[in-house]
């Protein structure tokens, strides 16, 4: 497996868009910012993501997965110095018989660090999506803020979604929350859209696009177009 390294430090600001990867090793140190936009259309089954965020630095990750194969994704983000921030946005679409597991974890090793995670999934046909991961605030990491949010829409009877975010808190004086929602496609929304002439497929498409919008719109136009095509095909 080829490992790609991305190092940003010394007050650097960078935005990087990457289509398809297998293993990423990230460091954002010393008052730096990295905007990382990842998109996966490939058939790589095992994906790895490791990151370190240092003093007064921010790592913002947007990760969109639209591959039609099985996926095992594992990520670990360590917040190693004060003022380290990570915002994490993940969107995935699974269809046919694919099984996708995303394990996204954060470790607050010192105080005054922040991790905000939002994971969105759409499970179609007979596919399965699992969101797991642990946000860990270690002893001494006071004033840390950590949040886990997971949402999965299950489109079809045979599709399956599981979200099990875990919080591990070893310190007082912190802010921590987590929430998980797994639900079916709203039938009132479907009826409303169809009553205006949209076919079932068009209505599903427009609902999915709307649901994934917080993430898809953050990509460049080229990638946005590809995302629309993939969703169209999946419907």
């Amino acid at each position, binding site marked *: 497996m080829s490992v790609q390294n991305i190092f940003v430090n010394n007050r650097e600001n960078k935005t990087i868009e990457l289509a398809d990867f297998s293993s990423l090793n990230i460091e954002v140190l010393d008052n730096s910012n990295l905007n990382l936009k990842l998109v996966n259309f490939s058939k790589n089954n095992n994906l790895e993501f490791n990151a370190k965020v240092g003093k007064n630095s921010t790592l913002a990750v947007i990760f969109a997965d639209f591959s039609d194969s099985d996926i095992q994704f594992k990520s670990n983000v360590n917040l190693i110095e004060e003022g380290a921030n990570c915002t994490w946005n993940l969107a995935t679409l699974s269809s046919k018989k694919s099984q996708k597991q995303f394990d996204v974890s954060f470790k607050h090793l010192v105080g005054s660090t922040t991790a905000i995670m939002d994971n969105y999934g759409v499970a179609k046909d007979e596919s399965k999506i699992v969101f797991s991961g642990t946000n860990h605030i270690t002893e001494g990491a006071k004033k840390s803020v950590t949040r886990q949010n997971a949402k999965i829409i299950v489109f079809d009877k045979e599709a399956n979604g599981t979200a099990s975010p875990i919080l591990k808190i070893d310190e007082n004086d912190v802010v921590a929350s987590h929430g998980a929602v797994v639900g079916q496609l*709203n*039938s*009132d*929304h479907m*009826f*409303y*859209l*169809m*009553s*205006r*002439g*949209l*076919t*079932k497929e*068009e*209505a599903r498409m*427009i*609902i999915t*696009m*709307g*649901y*994934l*919008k*917080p993430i898809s719109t953050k990509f460049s136009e080229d990638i946005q177009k590809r995302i629309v095509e993939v969703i169209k095909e999946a419907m």
Partner: protein
Amino acid sequence: MSKLVIKNLHVAVKGKEILKGLDIEFSTNETVALLGPNGNGKSTLLQTIMGNPNYEVIKGSIYYDDKDVLKLSTDERSKLGLFLGMQYPSEVPGVNNSDFLKAALNAHREKPVSLFEFYKLLNNAYEEMHIPFEMANRNLNEGFSGGEKKKNEILQMLVLNPDLVLLDEIDSGLDVDAIQVVASTIKKEQAKRGFVIVSHYAKLYELININRVYVLVNGKVAKVGDKSLIKKIDQEGYEWLKDEGIEFANEEKMNSVSIGSCATKEALKEK
């Protein structure tokens, strides 16, 4: 002119029969007022015509000219020229109002609408409904007030240009000015298309032309008349129908308040 003909319609919601052999006809060149106490089948009828999957047709037929409506999917019914302005329009997160309208409009056309034509159409509709054009870029009904949602329903009707429009309590949640806007739009549109209008308030009916009035009781048509019937019900409620031997559904829930003050009185009672 087209006709929607409904015969011996029986419809159940969650296993409970609401429509019990309804016969009624609507046409695209008249406006019909549909009245009746709560829970006696008005919304059920409109939702069934549009094909809401929560409403189960047990027996009967709905034909639009020679087309068997019950065999069509909801989107096909829309393409046939039917439109339902809903009592509770859905808020669909992340779906942009104008993107949605464009998709809906294109669904009714063979060739996609040009950007210029769409903009013009949209702009006119927003102006007509006194809705700020910026609202076109908001998400569909998301965060809209009750009145804005209802005006947005009429706006969609203007954009989609249907032949037969079913309006389910379109005036509830509207303030005095908004009722005037909705009523004047309906009045203008009456020459172009048919309307079936469900309302609890005499106010809206007073502002538009009404060709016929139906009173739905216990899942059937209990009374047919002209505009004077609305006045009678507004003043006397529905109780007098019982003296004529008409049986009511949901006896325990029945109220005898006049249609003009029904919602307010009900709200006060709940307090």
